[in-house]
């Protein structure tokens, strides 16, 4: 059981790290693209998308953590 719990822990750390990195990366792209105004609209969209992905990942992680280990409701 120990290796499995270690593996899960590594996965959690990886997911958190990626989510944490994606959001500032999106913000960097967004800020640099904004300096060129609406001409760089595809980059602005991309920056916002990165931020959204980071937020979605964190929310999914939170949901997964909340529901982990809870078995499906047993039939009466």
């Amino acid at each position, binding site marked *: 059981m120990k290796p499995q719990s270690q593996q899960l822990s590594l996965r959690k750390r990886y997911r958190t790290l990626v989510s944490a990195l994606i959001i500032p990366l999106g913000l960097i792209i967004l800020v640099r693209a904004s300096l060129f105004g609406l001409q*760089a609209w595809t980059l602005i969209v991309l920056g916002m998308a990165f931020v959204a992905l980071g937020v979605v990942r964190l929310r999914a992680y939170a949901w997964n953590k909340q529901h982990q280990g809870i078995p499906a409701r047993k039939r009466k």
Partner: protein
Amino acid sequence: MASKTAPDAAVASGAAAKIEQDSHSLRRAVGVWGSYTWGYADVGADVYVALGIVMAAAQGATNVAFLFAGLVYVMVGLAYTELAAAYPMAGGGQFYVLRGLGDFWGFVAGWAVLLDFTIDISLFALASAGYINFFIPVLDTHINISLSGITFPGVQPFLILEATIFVVLLTFLNIIGVRESSKFNEILGALDVISESSILFFGFLFAFNPSMLVHQMFTQWPDAFHLAYGASLAIISFVGLESISQASQETIRPGKVVPRTSIALILTVLIYALAFSNLSLAMLPWQSFAQHNGDPIAWLASHIPVLGLIAGPYVAMLGATLVLISSNAGVFGASRITYSMARFDLLPRWFSKVHPKFRTPIRTLVVFSGIALVELWLAGLSPNAYDVLGNMYAFGAATAYMLVFVSLLVLRFIDPWTPRPFKVPLNLRFRGKDGETRLLPIVGVLGFLGISSILALVVLTHAIGRIAGPAWIILGLLIYIWHRRRNKLPVTKSLKRNWEKEQMHVYEDAGEYELADELKENLARKRRLHGEEEIESRLPIGTQVLDVPLPSNGNHSRKRKGEKV
């Protein structure tokens, strides 16, 4: 278009009565991460192949071409998410079209997706061999081969042999069982997500130049034809959702897991495709990618400061890994879709046999991996096997997706009773004659128009695809007609099936008890509104209603009017 059912068709179906009792089923072993990586394995590799080709076509508007294809893909993805969560059965798009439009169109959709999966197996096994040959260039040798007096110039026999070995190896992995091959995908998928993210991360941190992107978009914008051609090619980057829905029958608690993994995958794939195309235009002229269309990501990575020194061999390894798991997703998908089609009498039931020990559909795995090998060997006779295989790719996807959209719309009206843990957003509310509310998804209508336009572009611009694609469909229809006539089943009409019982079984098998309770309540309301018993009593005497073949308890019995199940 409503589903055509033929209550009387089943009366004469002598062959259907000989349904093989199969006590083995696909086991539920795929979790959240497994479901995600099954889809990612398919899509992640497509970007690696598509970027260079799309760049050569769409030029300074490559990012816009990816954005257009990506928006259509998001709508396709939302449709798949709703259907996969509501109907968590192996078969994916084929199964949803079968539910919505009936047997005939269900077969057409399944056969079209099958074209993609078999090409997926051969094309990506070939690409993987190509990336490995980055380290052993001698294996890329071109030679002239003569067969029966016909000379084939520039054939790459070692490359084809390597790809053949990969296909055989992956087929074996899938025969051993989904647990093993899912784990295999999970490990490789994680490695590739990290690597791709690293390329994008370092690229955007150290190398991207927004002014170059703006310059290329303003001075190198293509004409309408090239932009449309680029967009139609870009859609080949987005086939992974089919894999998630294929795996939904083997996913633990699919009603909860599938919507989350699907939405995460939709966002990941869209963002990666947009990120790679934007980063490429913001780092290098599009012409340089057109010249390196065999290894565009390696070319991009080699120009990133610091990372660039090791990027060549690293990205070659990464590419080999990515495309190999994409090929594996093809083996998995092709076997599951034929398994599903055989269970519903769209293909001979011989295919639905599950291995007693490994509980995997061994016959479909062997047969359709075999077809993929034949495609590989035939394409291998051309000097550019990638081009021959890639040209047919988009046709199958666009055809199947179009039918899935129609099916989504139809199912919203004919089956509002099945619980939908996820619904495609933006709906118009209608009240049916029975008093039940129906929702028309605006996104579904827009998606149908979008994918129809892409199918039109494919037919207009893909020289091999517009011939080989329809030819594949015609071949499939001949097999379908032969099988249905041989078993005295209706060809254009559908068998009447007990979908409600099947749906209940699937929910209980998946541990989705809340959904099962909701379905029971909905069905009770339906019976109240419709007076169901009265409808059944109007069926001709002796009419038989087929139970859907339930995989785990072998429940293939039939009910005669007046009999209890």
